[in-house]
């Protein structure tokens, strides 16, 4: 398996797609809705961007298709792979470090301004 760090940093669209698939398998429209929910409607993913990113994620092995489900044959479901989960975890750690560093810098700056 490839090193998850090789895929970092992730673009916002990729991060949101991986994050939306972290909970359960979703179809394309479900991913779009989940991304909008995660960002409180501030980040809306269009189908073009969504499927372009899904194509790349499938090609790199971060996401895989799990086929269709009864009821709607047009919709295919997507699932986060083990590698995708590792990449998401590594990206979360990276972002966590960035946030921690940012908070530390902000705290150091506040007394100077006061």
């Amino acid at each position, binding site marked *: 398996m490839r090193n998850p760090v090789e895929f970092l940093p992730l673009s916002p669209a990729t991060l949101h797609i991986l994050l939306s698939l972290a909970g359960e398998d979703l*179809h*394309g*429209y479900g991913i*779009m809705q989940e991304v909008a929910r995660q960002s409180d409607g501030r980040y809306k993913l*269009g*189908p*073009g*961007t969504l*499927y*372009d990113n*899904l*194509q790349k994620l499938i*090609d790199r092995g971060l996401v895989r298709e799990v086929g269709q489900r009864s009821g*709607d044959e*047009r*919709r*295919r479901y997507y699932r986060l792979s083990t590698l995708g989960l590792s990449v998401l975890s590594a990206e979360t750690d990276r972002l966590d470090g960035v946030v921690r560093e940012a908070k530390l810098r902000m705290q150091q700056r506040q007394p100077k301004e006061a």
Partner: protein
Amino acid sequence: MLRSCYRTILAVHPPRFRQRFAGEMLGIFDEAHSKFAAARLVLDGIASLARQWILRSEFWEQPIAEVETLRSSGAPAFYTFDSFQPRNSALMQGAVLSLAIFCAVCFIMKYGVNHAVYMPFASIVAEGSGHESVTRAKHTALSQESATPNPGQNQRRAEALNQEQNKIAAKLHRLLMQAAAAPPAEQGLPRTEVRGLPAPMRNVVPDAAVPVPSPGTQTSTTIFISKQILESYVGIYVLDSPDRETISISMTAGELALETGGKQECSLTVISENRFAVCNGSDLWIEFLLPGSGMAQQIIIHDAGREIRAHRR
């Protein structure tokens, strides 16, 4: 209407993307609850179309494994035998071919038309000898020949003419340098003969027309050159040579002199009314071409059958 538009946009996506995602994208479009949302999806589709064709060339092709799977399942499948994306070698060959065609077109444009090249022919013929008409007839024939479209021949002739003009200009320079280096001739002494002819008189003339002995014949004949005619020769002329050098004809105390580049000067010795030897003892001679009246507009410098023209500036 918007749905048809969106379907069309999806239909022109790269085959692999279209087969994998077009159905789902159309399903998402059907979920749009307003025309504004549908219009946004159409715009998104256009952006996707550009992105897929411009930035995602690696995803244009349908993987062979997928095609084989589809075929074995009985679904109709199509694929091209050759790669849709041109090979690098094919691109290189195309570039070389395009360059070659471009060069060929430029060559044809440059040499495909018949350029009129001026080809002077020496006409140094003793007057009254009867050869003049023969030379002129030959000149006319050659001129007609040169009028036929033969680009290569015309180019060679032009190059030969340029070389000859350069030679004459260089010779003129050399003569003037020699004249400048030589000690000045004493006043009253006889001049050096031109082409073995008896010592010619300088073209010194008084205000009125006076007889001037000419070296044109073994026995000197007298010709008359008025000061007005000599003055009409004075001026600056630009040589037809590629370097476009200038020569200056001046008159001092009734005597014509030739100067190039403002450095060297050489006297002109009269041969006939409009012909003068350049620097005594040389093979060069100048012919002034006078229009009906007024100043000379053109001169021809002759040198052993070759000639170069100069026009008044």
